[in-house]
């Protein structure tokens, strides 16, 4: 499946292999495969207990599908996938992953960066950090919104 939104943990290596295998099984020739994985990381030194990710069921899948379709067309991708978790994640867990495949490496890289930039600011996910000092919603970064301007 090209778009998945799930609470279950996933294995990024297995996802990467499955993505590549699915392309090969379909006879898709792509010389370049790029992946990005996001990992929950401590906000301050060692005090992140967990991260809770909320999303908007229905809109999330639609937004991710739209972002993926744009990337596929714009960078002539041979394939693209997005997996994003929601719910409660411990520090160090994989939050999400995108992978792209293209005949040339520049397109595979640009496609993955495009997916990430749009996913950050246009897919309805919200992160809350649970630390030893309390809970707080993560603020959107101006740099994330600015990152969209380059496309």
């Amino acid at each position: 499946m090209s778009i998945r939104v799930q609470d279950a943990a996933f294995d990024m290596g297995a996802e990467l292999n499955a993505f590549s295998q699915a392309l090969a099984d379909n006879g898709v020739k792509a010389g370049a495969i790029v992946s990005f994985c996001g990992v929950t990381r401590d906000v301050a030194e060692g005090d992140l207990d967990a991260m809770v990710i909320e999303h908007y069921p229905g809109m999330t899948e639609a937004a991710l599908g739209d972002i993926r379709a744009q990337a596929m067309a714009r960078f002539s991708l041979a394939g693209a996938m997005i997996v994003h978790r929601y719910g409660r994640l411990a520090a160090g867990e994989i939050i999400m992953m995108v992978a792209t495949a293209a005949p040339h490496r520049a397109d595979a890289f640009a496609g993955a960066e495009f997916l990430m930039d749009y996913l950050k600011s246009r897919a309805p996910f919200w992160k809350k950090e649970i630390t030893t000092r309390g809970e707080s919603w993560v603020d959107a970064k101006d740099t994330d919104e600015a990152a969209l301007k380059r496309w």
Partner: protein
Amino acid sequence: MELRYFAWLRERVGTGHEVVETEAATVSALVEELRARSEAHAFALSDLTSVRVAVDQQLVDFDASISEAREVAFFPPMTGG
């Protein structure tokens, strides 16, 4: 009309989902009605610079029409990835 709230907007309003009767023509007009609905709503919707809105699961501006809308959602800027 179905309303949805997410993240700190949900926490401030006190619910993630409610159904309202409204004649509001735009999101802005709906926001005005909601602010009058309760102090919690007024607090949640006090600063719209940090509020985003989707009508029928599509991101829109506050001047968007909601005359045909089934569902309107309010939430903070997104922080996925």
